[in-house]
């Protein structure tokens, strides 16, 4: 890390980028929204765009000024922040590539290098990006460290190992044993906490920086608050009519995934929550004339988010709950400043994707009741096995427990080569009509 790089980074962060982003916003012509079945768009979306654009823009200047880490969505990023690392989330980047409909183009680059088309498309986007540099964000900084936890899937471990091998970048791994039954044992948490502790000297070596406990605590506090705020944001959808939808939640999830532990993340959710609470007080509906309230299971179909959102709304259907967005609010109550390592272990080992399907079923049932859901849409994501295997039975069980109807959409997160918009539309329309009875 050189002083010149540090000064350049600070200048971009504090001076140039804020000015550039404001100017860009001013110059952006207001596109006509046209006839929309949706309610008024969230004001906060503009701040979100600014925040995330800034995050990716600044990332380019972080290289050489800050230790850069590529991080998995379920990793204890709080530890990295204590070292002042700049974090980039390949999963979030892949989602962005998906939303910009670049998935197949980038995936093809990975496939040309021998990676099977059946592999997780987030991973293919990432490996394709590493091989080609293709990205909608200009450039991603080269990482100094890869920071990976297999609490979301085992796949991420193979993916990050591969990245580490190809790029010659050190990998810090937290192995979180899958909790098939019960609430996890002390052995599991000791094992995970031990690995997090072991990461401290490893990160000191890699970053050349000393671990500062006070900074760590500050970050933990901020992370707890951000996740709690995110939980409150989601909870506003319990209101009838819901002030936002699960599709909005997918979009507004980015900061709690990528910027957790930073003050900007907290500030952002304070603003979003205030806006939603205000909407609730005035009964502003995200889907005017909301007739049905649906739960979405699995990751978003990023490339079809907008058309799906419209289609739902055209039929008076509001997606009001989602297992995926909920994951970042689900376990943060375990975090405890009195036992940072042990509580991080619990927080990250106990997320629903790292637990048996019985737990997932209970969680979905509770969400179904809390959010007064009358239908379920399951996205069977072709290239995400951990999320998708078991969905057919979850669907049957939930139908029995909640008495709700459901539909399965065969899709993918980013790769639309096997997606048929027409087929999805037909299926969903038939489903929505069945809800109307």
């Amino acid at each position, binding site marked *: 890390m050189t002083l010149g790089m540090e000064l350049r980074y600070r200048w971009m962060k504090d001076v140039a980028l804020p000015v550039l982003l404001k100017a860009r916003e001013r110059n952006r012509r207001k596109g006509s929204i046209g006839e929309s079945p949706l309610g008024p768009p969230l004001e906060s979306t503009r701040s979100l765009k600014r925040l995330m654009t800034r995050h990716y823009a600044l990332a380019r200047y972080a290289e050489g000024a800050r230790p850069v880490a590529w991080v998995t969505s379920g990793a204890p990023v709080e530890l990295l922040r204590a070292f002042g690392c700049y974090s980039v989330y390949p999963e979030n980047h892949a989602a962005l590539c998906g939303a910009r409909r670049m998935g197949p183009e980038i995936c093809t680059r990975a496939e040309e*290098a*021998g*990676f*099977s088309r*059946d*592999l*997780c498309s987030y*991973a293919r986007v990432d490996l394709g990006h590493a091989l080609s540099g293709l990205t909608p964000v200009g450039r991603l900084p080269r990482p100094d460290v890869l920071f990976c936890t*297999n609490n979301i*899937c*085992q*796949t991420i*471990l*193979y*993916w990050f*190992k*591969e990245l*580490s*091998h*190809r790029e010659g970048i050190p990998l810090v*791994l*937290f*192995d979180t*044993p*899958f909790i*098939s*039954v019960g609430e996890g*044992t002390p*052995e*599991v948490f*000791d*094992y995970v906490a*031990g*690995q997090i502790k*072991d990461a401290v000297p490893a990160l000191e070596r890699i970053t050349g920086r000393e671990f500062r406990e006070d900074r760590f605590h500050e970050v933990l506090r901020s992370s707890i608050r951000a996740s709690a705020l995110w939980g409150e944001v989601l909870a506003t959808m319990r209101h009838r009519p819901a002030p936002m939808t699960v599709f909005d939640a997918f979009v507004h999830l980015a900061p709690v995934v990528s910027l957790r532990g930073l003050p900007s993340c907290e500030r952002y959710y304070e603003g979003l929550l205030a806006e939603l609470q205000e909407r609730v007080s005035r009964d502003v509906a995200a889907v005017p004339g909301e007739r049905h309230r649906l739960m979405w299971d699995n990751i978003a179909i990023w490339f079809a988010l907008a058309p799906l959102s419209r289609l739902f709304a055209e039929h008076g259907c509001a997606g009001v709950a989602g297992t995926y967005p909920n994951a970042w609010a689900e376990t943060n109550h375990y975090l405890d400043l009195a036992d940072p390592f042990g509580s991080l272990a619990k927080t990250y080992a106990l997320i629903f994707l790292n637990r*048996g*399907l*019985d737990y997932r*079923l209970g969680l979905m049932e509770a969400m179904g009741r809390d959010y007064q859901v009358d239908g379920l849409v399951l996205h*069977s994501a*072709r*290239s995400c*096995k*951990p999320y*998708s*295997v*078991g*969905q*057919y*039975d*979850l669907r*049957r*069980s939930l139908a029995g427990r909640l008495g709700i109807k459901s539909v399965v959409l*065969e899709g993918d997160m980013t790769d639309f080569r096997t997606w048929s918009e027409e087929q999805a539309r037909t299926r969903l329309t038939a489903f929505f009509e069945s809800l109307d009875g």
Partner: protein
Amino acid sequence: MGRTAYLQGQKAAGRKVAAVWPARYPAELLWAHGVCPAEVWDPPAGQALAGAHLQSYVCGIVRQGLELLLSGGLTTADILLFPHTCDSIQNLGSLVRDLVHEPRPCLYFYPPRSGRSERAAVYLEAQLRTLSADLTRIAGPLRDGALEGALALGNGRAAALRHMYDLRARGALDASNEEFYGAVRTCEYLWPEDAVLHLEAFMKTHAGRPRRGVPLVLSGVLPAPSDLAQRLDGLSVAVVEDDLLACGRRFARALLPEPGDPWRAMAARLLALPPCSTAGDSVEDRASFLAEQVERTGGRGVLVLALKFCEPELFQIPSLVDAMRGRGIPVLAVETELGNSAPAGMMTRVEAFLESLP
């Protein structure tokens, strides 16, 4: 004697039977509790019933294993054991217990991915004790010396397998690929003493000069489709080694000194297995292991059997192929599926590969 009849015999002799899904698990602990593991890899089952529970993009091992279970093909089993080998098996194990409501006890085993570290060993040991407590409830407590006895059985079986692999590598086994893998894979369900007897008898019967053929090393999950070994025989391929997940990746290649404590020893044994994608081992380690095998056995190339939808393997294969080529070792990766017969296209590629070998 067929597999089912054999397992029924085990039950008649007072043992319990555990249906075990792939791949690596502490067989010694099951033996110590008097439980005979019967592994579920590629049973000749269709996929009609499993289709109602699993999407088409799940690997054949998971789909056919579930089919076997749902169609009543695992009635001899008293216990089901699911090692957390990959995301698909992980979810299958949970699906069977939680959503299909399998009434028999479902047990789980998590092979640590944090390298072959002390932490991994400690966690493994704790997990073995938990698993043992579960087995105690089902099959009764451990007798004095049972763990030590089971470790000795494990040593015996690994030694027999090493010997057999060694004979094949040295060209001192007159056995076709089909015969060889047929014998090795009986270890998937035979009680270890029977497995050793079987392997020894096999080695005796097949002692002699090997059939002529192109020496190849196999990699991947398992010899599939089921006629693959036979088809390789037909192409005059003499497999000389393998790091197949179902075969050569499941026994230590050398007898290493072990801690005196049997729990520790069991954990150490699992951590001493050859490098494996499912264990989170690096591709460098796997490539070095394979290259060593090629060099030691005089293999002229490596044939990688990439099982469709197998994430752990499919992630490693491109770099593994590069690493082999980088070492000047010819390599071919073909996509395979379970089933009865190898597709013509795949076999054509194998033939072309054989012709291209120096």
